[in-house]
């Protein structure tokens, strides 16, 4: 059974994702140090809260270099919500903070108005259908089954603007698209919460870590 390390850096509730991984047939465990990552087959990076706090917490636990090493060695790494944002080069949340740099591009605040000036609420909370980013297909990715338009659950105030090769999927707020998922090789980031998005969300975990 695949051992999936769920990074525990004191900033998120591990229960839901742990149970979701178990339901999908994996063996999750909480990992709070680089030593604890050594026998992981794959890694989940969660996160709730501010970007700068999250990166500081990873740094204090010595997890920044080891996450980069695992990514370079080909380990499957899934970032969820803030965990996804931290995979990018930087965020503008609370002044500029450096991220892990596994994806190109940065993280910026969601716009508070639609193209026509209608207000858009921040944080963005709720279910939204996810589709392939321009020039990308979802075939062969962990999101392949979403091509029928399954909706995912989002809770966020910031979103990533990935460099073109890393952009995988988008969702809409009003008429404005934002990055819903990014992927580079063995590293996948989801702005939404697959562990809170019903059976279609669980299918992403099952498919990515299979």
């Amino acid at each position, binding site marked *: 059974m695949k051992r999936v390390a769920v990074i525990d850096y004191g900033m998120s*509730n591990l229960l839901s994702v742990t*149970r979701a991984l178990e339901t999908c047939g994996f063996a999750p465990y909480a990992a709070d140090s680089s030593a604890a990552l050594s026998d992981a087959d794959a890694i989940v990076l969660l996160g709730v809260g501010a970007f700068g706090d999250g990166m500081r917490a990873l740094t204090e636990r010595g997890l920044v270099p080891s996450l980069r090493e695992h990514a370079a060695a080909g380990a499957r790494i899934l970032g969820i919500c803030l965990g996804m944002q931290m995979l990018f080069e930087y965020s503008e949340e609370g002044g500029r903070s450096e991220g892990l740099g596994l994806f190109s591009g940065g993280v910026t605040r969601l716009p508070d108005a639609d193209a026509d000036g209608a*207000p*858009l*609420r921040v944080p963005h909370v709720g279910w939204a259908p996810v589709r392939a980013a321009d020039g990308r297909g979802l075939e062969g990715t962990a999101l392949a089954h979403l091509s029928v338009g399954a*909706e995912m659950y989002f809770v966020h105030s910031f979103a990533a603007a990935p460099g073109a090769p890393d952009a995988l999927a988008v969702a809409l707020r009003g008429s404005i698209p934002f990055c819903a998922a990014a992927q580079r090789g063995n590293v996948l980031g989801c702005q939404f919460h697959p562990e809170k998005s019903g059976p279609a969300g669980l299918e992403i975990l099952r498919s990515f870590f299979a």
Partner: protein
Amino acid sequence: MSGRKIRLIARLDVKDENLVKGIQYEGLRKLGKPNDFAVRYYAGGIDELVYLDTVASLYGRNNLGDVLRQCAQNVFIPITAGGGLRSTDDVRELLRCGADKAAINTAAVRDPALITRVADAFGSQCMVLSIQAKRTANGWEAYCDNGREHTGLDAVEWAAEGERRGAGEILLTSVDCEGLRRGMDAALIEAVRARVTIPVIAAGGAGSAADVVRATRAGADAVAVGSLLHYGGADVPAPKQTLRDDGWEVRR
């Protein structure tokens, strides 16, 4: 707000380890294990669950944790929980048990600054202001303790103040309609909708899919239903299909 998608929420009132349902919060009947119902609604495609501990605020205790932990074992959608929450520590504990949002009524009435503290600590999306509204001669008054205790607050004004203080959603229950299954208080929903921009979850009184549609037309972003589902009157897909037939967007 563009792209308004209507959520159907199952409301699970719990007392100790049991799912209960009353009429206007009185005469609670035991219906069974909450998790059995939660799993059924999840399988049916419910969008969210709301757990409310009906006795916690009366006896000053909180036993929701076990129920939530059990729910998190096999239900993978957003979960709101409330009943007797008094502090950010109480909220943190509920989140640790698998909840995503906290519904707060009594403690917010006694200490409105708690709304801001919870929103600052966990994000406004986590802070659901629960309002139990009862009709008066010229409007609605907010009540505490399951519709038993006056607050002296105008329910509509209180909703507006809640938004100003950082609430991310209003869970709006009509005490008059609650449990009767004779329809929801559309005027109440309209009045609150007109005063806040945050999502309004309408609760209390839905006895049919048509009642859910009427609440939505009155301005609800989400409708929380209890009896309608618990007593087998409807499976989850039925009210969602009725909403769709009326032209509303709902999650597939």
